[in-house]
């Protein structure tokens, strides 16, 4: 409807409302003239205005109530399981500790249920299905496996996963006061789990300490593939990606996740870099406390992290000597390489990252770093401590021997020289003045002198 006509309609509608019904009809007849369409329009609106729109408002309220049915509480039964307590709740669903009730073994499991409103959104249902598929395809000792899946009585899907009784990896390292090398070994196990996911074309997209629990046996387990993505070129649902990006944890997000770029395995490598930073330095690479999501996003995209060796938090179970000395150089390099802003400049794979960490642990030069010749020699020496020490010892012994021999030789020749000078002293014209000694006399003289001296030197 053109604005002009709508204004006219509005004017007539209110003018008619102010009049009593009889005069209103006559007024409209006159005002509309031969525009019968306008007349009909105004009359139908006047007619409607006698009724209430309250039913529509109530419908809104009812839908509001209906859509927010709450999640079940402990004690409820889901399939063959009994919910025991809520472990955590997020935007899309909640995870419960539950127990299987039909078998002999009262196995504890974790059950993920959808928020009631979620189950009616096809997009969210799709995410849940994807998570189920992803978990079903992953089988790794350090990934909490999917045990079962099903539908609740009211048609809501649920996932049953292994219950991991553990604490977040950063807390674990802190409580156990692990040394750098032990932290790295733990990190390598996490890398292996992520690498396994990548090999199965799955990007986790939400790697953070809260999703890596370490059991009492010191075994890390990667969990929550809730916003994981299949690296499938066909599965490129931008809306789902954006949604997932809103659900992830900004603190461990990569720049491309923040600005909504293409998210690949490199995003997980970035998150692993941040994780390693946190494990080694005992603090997050950036000061994010009290910052808004917007500011956090900006920091992640633009600010360069300080080397972990320079920002060690000593309150985090790190011994100062162990921390800063061991981080400088190689570990700083590994962490900052994994955390580079541009995905293409990070490690090309989790395997490459693991290789460098392993190289550090075994004292080999990193694959991604250039060294001076001096550093290389130093590394070689540290790597082969015993051999180098042995070699140095042998060299030292040989040197000593050589010196001793040289000194010995020098002593002998000095003796010879003094003998010679004694032999020939008598031939000195100043000593044997006036006498004319023949060659024979010198020789016999010498033999006597030598004999005398020989007696003086004990054999």
């Amino acid at each position: 409807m053109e604005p002009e006509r709508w204004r006219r309609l509005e004017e007539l509608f209110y003018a008619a409302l102010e009049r009593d019904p009889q005069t209103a009809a006559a007024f409209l007849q006159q005002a509309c003239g031969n525009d019968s369409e306008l007349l009909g329009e105004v009359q139908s609106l006047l007619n409607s205005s006698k009724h209430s729109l309250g039913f529509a408002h109530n419908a809104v309220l009812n839908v509001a109530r209906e859509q927010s049915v709450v999640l079940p509480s402990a004690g409820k039964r889901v399939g063959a399981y009994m919910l025991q307590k809520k472990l955590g709740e997020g935007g899309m669903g909640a995870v419960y500790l539950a127990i299987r009730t039909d078998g002999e073994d009262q196995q504890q499991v974790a059950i993920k249920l959808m928020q009631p409103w979620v189950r009616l959104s096809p997009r969210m249902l799709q995410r849940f299905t994807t998570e189920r598929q992803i978990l079903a395809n992953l089988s790794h000792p350090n990934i909490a496996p999917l045990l079962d899946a099903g539908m609740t009585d009211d048609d809501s899907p649920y996932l049953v996963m292994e219950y991991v009784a553990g604490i977040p990896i950063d807390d674990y390292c802190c409580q156990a006061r692990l040394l750098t090398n032990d932290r790295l070994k733990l990190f390598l196990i996490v890398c292996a789990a992520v690498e396994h996911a990548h090999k199965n074309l799955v990007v986790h997209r939400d790697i953070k300490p809260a999703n890596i629990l370490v059991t009492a046996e010191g075994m890390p387990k990667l969990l929550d593939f809730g916003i994981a993505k299949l690296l499938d070129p066909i599965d490129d649902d931008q809306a789902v990606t954006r949604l997932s990006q809103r659900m992830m944890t900004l603190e461990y997000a990569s720049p491309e996740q923040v600005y909504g770029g293409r998210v690949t395995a490199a995003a997980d490598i970035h998150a692993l870099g941040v994780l390693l930073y946190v494990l080694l330095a005992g603090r997050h690479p950036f000061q994010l406390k009290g910052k808004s999501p917007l500011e956090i996003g900006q920091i992640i995209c633009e600010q360069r992290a300080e080397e972990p060796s320079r920002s060690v938090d000593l309150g985090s179970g790190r011994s100062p000597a162990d921390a800063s000395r061991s981080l400088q150089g190689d570990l700083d390099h590994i962490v900052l390489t994994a955390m580079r802003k541009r995905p293409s400049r990070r490690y090309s794979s989790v395997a490459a990252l693991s290789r460098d960490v392993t190289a550090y642990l075994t004292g080999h030069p990193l694959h991604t770093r250039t060294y001076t010749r001096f550093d290389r020699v130093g590394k070689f020496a540290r790597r082969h401590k015993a051999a180098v020490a042995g070699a140095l010892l042998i060299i030292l012994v040989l040197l000593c021997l050589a010196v001793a021999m040289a000194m010995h030789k020098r002593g002998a020749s000095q003796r010879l020289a003094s003998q010679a000078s004694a032999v020939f002293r008598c031939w000195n014209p100043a000593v044997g003045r006036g006498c004319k000694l023949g060659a024979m006399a010198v020789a016999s003289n010498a033999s006597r002198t030598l004999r005398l001296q020989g007696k003086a030197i004990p054999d």
Partner: protein
Amino acid sequence: MSSESQSVTSLLQRWSSGDRRALDELVPIIYQELRRLASRCFSSERSGHTLRATALVHEAYLRLVEADIQWQDRAHFYAIAARVMRRILVEYARAHRRHKRGSGQIHVPLDEAVVVGPDAAAIVSDLDDALQRLAAIDPRRSDIVQLLFFGGLTYEETAAALNISPATVHRELKLAKAWLLREMEPRAS
């Protein structure tokens, strides 16, 4: 003041000074807060609150924004929250219709003194369609209904949010309601 409230306030300011991207960031924040409040507010222990259902945007406001922001920013907040709430409810209603099609009416608790039509979800979906058509002709009238029905605001608050007098809200609403009713006629009768 929490960081959340700082961020919402600065986003509102950016938005009112013409930065359209600020809206993209505001919507998810408000969306999440409304969701969270909704699931708590409608839980059975608090069923007394159900009729204040859409007044949730008030609570969201109190949680997300510090008390003394500029009046205009406050109005903007309500406008966005009502829009978000509308989207949440309409999305749900549409999904529900698809889900329950052919399986009868939606469940309405008996203790609620509410007159419910044959299918609340269908009505909400139709109301949304009609509101969209109204917005094309007369955006302000569409906003008034959105704030009142989906935002759960009072007439006074709606007036304040739109920078008009409560009397104007009353007056404009008359035509808006008549028009919407006529558009939704087959269902209303």
